[in-house]
């Protein structure tokens, strides 16, 4: 047994240890629907990125190989549009979910949008941002973040922006004959540039900044699986979202929002999926860097 332990990687060891040592009950951070939507988003986003970038970087050998693997440019186009439908679906489902959230929990849009768990940027987010920068340079303590930090809110609205910009231009390129009934033909050229550069921004940002902020941060390395399990160890909540934790303790609602952790087999499956997504994401980043720096024309 000791020998086997020696061979364990730190992450596996931690998982084993947490299974053994951490209390069985964890804090519920995401609903089941939110988790499903995030998985759907990962799948459709990576698919969109891979199929779309074959066209954007068509001058690289990789693009041609990938395009053939995907069954040709027409097949890749169909996959791209299917993934886009999934993405639109995710977006619309989330909007509907927000509406239901308003009705069941908050009662009014005002409560939803201006309450303590609002996704909208607030003045406090600004002070926390300044506080964080101070903390970075050693001029203060780490701010006591609430349920959503300012970078999480940024990521969240980045998706709104992306859906609007990439989605609208994507539709224009999908139905050029229809759109040129009332738009000039050269708008298709503009749409192409916006669609592809915004997509580059989205993929680049998600696969580097978002990955780091949520998964690769040394204290969470190699990944944070909360978004897949929906559960968060209580001490992590305490450490990362102290303001929320304290508010929950104060209101006495904490116990309601606890549930049992998933068995190890589920955790392992989730990790496997997350590894694939991470690897694909990094692969795409490397490809982008290669294409931009070494093969750009």
């Amino acid at each position, binding site marked *: 047994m000791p020998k086997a332990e020696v061979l364990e990687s730190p992450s596996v060891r931690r998982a084993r240890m947490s299974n053994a040592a951490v209390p069985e009950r964890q804090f519920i951070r995401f609903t089941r629907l939110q988790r499903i939507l995030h998985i759907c988003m990962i799948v459709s986003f990576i698919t969109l990125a891979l199929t779309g970038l074959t066209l954007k970087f*068509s001058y690289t050998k990789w693009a041609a190989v990938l395009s053939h693997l995907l069954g040709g440019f*027409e097949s890749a186009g169909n996959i791209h549009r299917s993934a886009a439908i999934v993405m639109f679906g995710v977006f619309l489902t989330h909007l509907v979910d927000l509406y239901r959230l308003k009705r069941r929990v908050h009662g009014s849009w005002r409560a939803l949008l201006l309450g303590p768990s609002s996704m909208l940027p607030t003045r406090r987010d600004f002070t926390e941002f300044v506080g964080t920068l101070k903390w970075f340079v050693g001029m203060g303590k780490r701010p006591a973040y609430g349920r959503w930090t300012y970078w999480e809110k940024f990521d969240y609205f980045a998706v709104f922006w992306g859906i609007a910009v990439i989605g609208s231009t994507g539709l224009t390129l999908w139905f*050029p004959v229809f759109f*040129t009934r009332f738009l000039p033909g050269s708008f298709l050229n503009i749409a192409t540039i916006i669609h592809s550069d915004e997509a580059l921004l989205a993929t680049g940002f998600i696969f*580097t900044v978002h990955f780091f902020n949520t998964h690769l941060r040394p204290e969470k390395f190699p990944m944070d699986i909360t978004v897949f399990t929906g559960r968060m160890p209580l001490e992590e909540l305490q450490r990362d979202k102290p303001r929320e934790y304290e508010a929950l303790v104060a209101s006495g609602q904490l116990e309601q929002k606890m549930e049992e952790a998933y068995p190890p087999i589920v955790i392992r499956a989730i990790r496997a999926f997350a590894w694939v997504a991470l690897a694909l994401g990094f692969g795409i980043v490397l490809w982008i860097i290669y294409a931009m720096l070494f093969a750009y024309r």
Partner: protein
Amino acid sequence: MAENKVVRWNSNARLGIFVAPILVITLSLLFSESGRATGAEADPPGAECLACHGEKSLTTTRAGRTISLYVDGKKFATSVHGSFGCTGCHADLEGKDLPHDTPAPVKCGTCHSTEQEQHARSLHGKAVARGDPLAPRCINCHGNHDIYPVKDPRSAVAPLKVPFVCGQCHREGTPVSRNRPIAQDNILENYSESIHGEALLKKGLSVAPTCATCHTPHLILPHTDPASSINRRNIAATCTKCHSQIETVHRKIIRGALWEKEANVLPACVDCHQPHKIRNVFYTQGMADADCMHCHADEKLRRTRDGQSMFINVGEVSHSRHSKVACSQCHSEVNASRVRPCETITRGVDCTSCHDEIGKQYISSTHGQLNSKNDPNAPTCKECHGTHGVLGKHDPQSATFPTNVPGLCARCHREGQKAAIRYVGRQHEIIANYTESIHGKGLLKAGLTVTATCTSCHTAHRVLPRTDPASTVNAANVPATCGQCHHGIEEQFENSIHAKRISGSAKELPVCNDCHTAHAIRRTDEDGFRLDIMQTCGRCHSEIAKTYFDTYHGKVSKLGYAKTAKCYDCHGAHDVLAVTDPRSHLSRANVAVTCQKCHVGATRRFAGYLTHATHHDPRKYPFLFYTFWGMTALLLGTFVIGGLHTLLWLPRAFQMRRELRAAEEKASTELGESVDKEDSDAQS
């Protein structure tokens, strides 16, 4: 009148056959009545003589034979010599008392000196000089007192009578034909059946050649005599006296001028059209084919000089294109009078003596030029066509049959062979490329004999390098060359912007092979062609081809898919015109229809899509340029902020991790577990 003439000539012709016997009979009849006629008429010249000689009974005896001395006064009076009187010819009787002695023989040469002289040099004259009793003198052909002008039907040597005059001696069975060495036999029979004889004797054409036309009337010489009109060297001149236009008739077969200049290398008229048997058909005779085969049928026959086999396979020749051509027509220097007729041959066969036009082409070609420099690599006629077994290009067995041509040319032009080695141009793997090309597949795989093969473009005999302005593959001539088959395309091309006439450009403009290649021509609906066309057009249109790859069509092409629009799908292929031209596929009026080929329902506004747009040109496409840089600024800004945020975060994150590990360690030591080693792992 004409009718009368014909009738009279016909009767004369019939009469003529019996001219000589009748003359004799008449003379003998007249002889019995001699003395009846008296010299009543004193006026006409010779009336004095006719007082006695007008009597048919007047005879004398010479050397034991009775000879009539009767002279028909009427005939004499109307003859050419009628006005001269008797003593005009019998000058020695002038003033002699009657009865006079036997007169001296008449000397026609006194007046007819030229003819006399010619006769003296001729075969006949020499025989007379030898004292040959069979030798003919003037009188034997022309008669004596009844000589009429040659054109007078009554003349003994009128054209229609000549064969009979000559036939007196040269018929079969006469002493002359039996006892004198005459090469030809059945002369009169053959002649009368020949085209000449038929014209003269059956059709009554007095202009048809008679014996004297070819043999001359007086200067008759054996054919072996170089001065003879029927000698090999002179026969052409003799025949062309009448057949003056024979050059044009034979122009595709024989260069007429050579008959006179180099008669020795050419077949003479009589080699094909045998003397006396001439008919207006081709003759299957061989001057001496059998004589040649006497030796050359021997399979073991070798040339002493170099041991080369001299065996001729008769079967090969008889199945060849030249099966009806005699050996001597090609091997023209043979001399039939030798035991080995071929020993006089000094040079090889010259095909141009018949194939004159092709010969001229060959001499002007690269092959011919090399040959004239005595280059050992130069192909001559036989390299491609073979020798005795030569077959026409329509014979599938022939090396020059369309499907065999690539293989034939490949003997020298295949990579590594002698022509490919000395070639310095840019075409390589010619044969391999051709075989895989649309033409090669059409010809060799589909077996379409009308498919273009080497000679279709390069010509068979006028092969010249493309740098030569006269070459069929010179850039200026390529459209016409390809247009031989692709006529409709050539028409389109000649009206396109790529045609000099339309563009008026001084630059070098593309022709067929610049886009389609010369030997590796592919189907234009194959992916390979469609994907390479941008590079092909891009050789000249480099900027516009580059920007094509910045838009969707180009990007998909770059990925290796042929389906999206390529240059010619929009601009047209052979009918490409400036987009400003109203006839262009991309003109204002036509562009929407062009887009609709793929984009159903495309409008004029849809066509406003910039297929060659680039965001690198702020002057041409400012809105694209600024959109791109706006997006790039957004991208860079986001990454700079996000990146800086992350970088600043890192040290704190590592600090947190260390603290976390310390807390974990503390917790685990509290649990009493020894994890020293693992801790060090975690620390690293």
